[in-house]
């Protein structure tokens, strides 16, 4: 699951972490557009270099590399499928071309994932929530998003506890054929579900006493504010992107 590892936030204090999440999101989107627009190798390589520089500035290189490593199986799959597709449809004349184009597609997928990995690695879920709010997404959706992040590790721990409890009564989870193994999921899933239901009830009670949904005009302790450095970053990335657009449309 190393690909997910690359999407988990870790607290940091770098210039990249401090950027407004909306700017970071936009940068990721622009990168995505470039990846879609260009197939030229040198541009794609440049994009990777830019990303590497950003990862370095944010001190998340190792985790960023993990995402890339995690996305390799997926990239191999894309490569294989495309190669088969190109060969069977005869889109490209030579084998060399087939391989080149399949590789580019696979590589673009990696770029796509790694660009979002930088966003998620340097943006707190709380900031993502604030971003959603600033886009006027109704609060219940934002709340659902934040709760999902808040409770995932708790439920993962619960799952481990249940497995320990059931193994302690003689259930051998990793023995038997596929059918037997599927049957062994029941003693794990039923308690997990029962716990989840009870937890949901308790959460609902606590939400109730904390006035959830009392008013449509919900306020918020923190607010996203664009600062000069955010505008600067925005300007730089938009200029670079426009240059790229211009060259694509008129020069190439």
């Amino acid at each position, binding site marked *: 699951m190393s690909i997910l590892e690359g999407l988990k936030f870790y607290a940091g204090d770098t210039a990249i972490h401090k950027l407004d999440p909306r700017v970071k999101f936009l940068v990721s989107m622009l990168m995505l557009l470039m990846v879609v627009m260009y197939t030229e190798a040198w541009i794609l390589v440049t994009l990777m270099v830019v990303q590497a520089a950003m990862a370095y500035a944010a001190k998340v290189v190792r985790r960023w590399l993990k995402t890339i490593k995690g996305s390799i199986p997926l990239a191999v799959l894309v490569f294989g499928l495309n190669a088969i597709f190109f060969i069977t449809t005869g889109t490209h004349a030579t084998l060399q071309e087939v391989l080149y184009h399949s590789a580019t597609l696979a590589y673009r997928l990696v770029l796509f994932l790694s660009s979002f990995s930088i966003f998620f690695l340097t943006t707190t879920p709380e900031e993502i929530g604030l971003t959603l709010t600033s886009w006027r997404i109704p609060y219940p959706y934002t709340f659902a998003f934040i709760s999902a992040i808040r409770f995932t590790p708790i439920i993962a721990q619960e799952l481990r506890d249940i497995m320990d409890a059931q193994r302690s009564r003689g259930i051998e989870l990793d023995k038997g054929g596929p059918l037997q193994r599927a049957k062994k999921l029941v003693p794990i899933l039923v308690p997990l579900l029962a716990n989840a239901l009870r937890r949901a009830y308790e959460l609902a*009670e606590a939400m109730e006493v904390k006035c959830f949904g009392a008013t449509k005009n919900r306020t918020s302790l923190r607010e996203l504010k664009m600062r000069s450095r955010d505008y600067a970053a925005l300007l730089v990335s938009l200029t670079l992107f426009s240059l790229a657009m211009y060259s694509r449309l008129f020069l190439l």
Partner: protein
Amino acid sequence: MEIVRVEGLTFTYSGSEVPAVKDINLTMKEGEFVLLLGPSGCGKSTLCRCLNGLIPHFYAGKMDGKVVVAGMDVTKTPTYVLSQHVGMVFQIPENQLFSLTVENDVAFALENLGIPRDEIKRRVDFALRAVGIEELRGRSPFELSGGQQQKVAIASILALMPKLMLFDEPTSSLDPVSAKSVVDIISSIRKEFGTSIIVAEHRVELLADKVDRVIVMQEGSIIKDGKPKEVFVSEEFTPYGVPVPKVVSMAKGVNRHLRVFNDMPLSPEEFEQGIRGFLYDKVR
């Protein structure tokens, strides 16, 4: 001033045949500190839920009688209004915290009410300070211990500045040291802000000498209500599943042989005073 008035309250959860609380009559003065005792399933939680409007607004069932809290009839007042006057802290800390930082959790209820940002900031600062967890401000609830999480839960309710705070077994999932610090926070809230408090708890050792009044419930009814000394001394509670502080048992045991304690001790300090007083009187 009266903060709570309950008259002839009976409540049966829908789907159940036995009432969870029956014919409860209770008044509570403003600023009173009440310990609610009784075995699991005796109706303590149900009574608390009736006081903050979770019953009948959240839990369906058949309700008879009248419940007036801070001058409001709970059946006619929406929960979010009641919650600003009656705060409630639950048993499991992690299931009351929704955010990814402590300060956001403390602000949560205030945000829901649409209170202006400056006021939220002020109240968050106040609540964090009152509970003594300012340094946890930026942490994620997930990295905190159970005791710290429960303190965050308390701060998140305190930020609403309620007149009455209900605690439903706030320490039962905590280790003794955290339990003690949570109990200390509860009694300091009452001391500093004069908040009326009801705590449903099993740990009598920690609370006996701090509360003004002890109410004992059994099978949905109140069976005993009085000053802690009277209640703990009057009889052995063990058959009801209500514990007596060890110092009380010790003092009773000693008194069977020698008349040492005229006044029942509720803490090791009071026990010590009793013994020393006895010896001093003897000398005179």
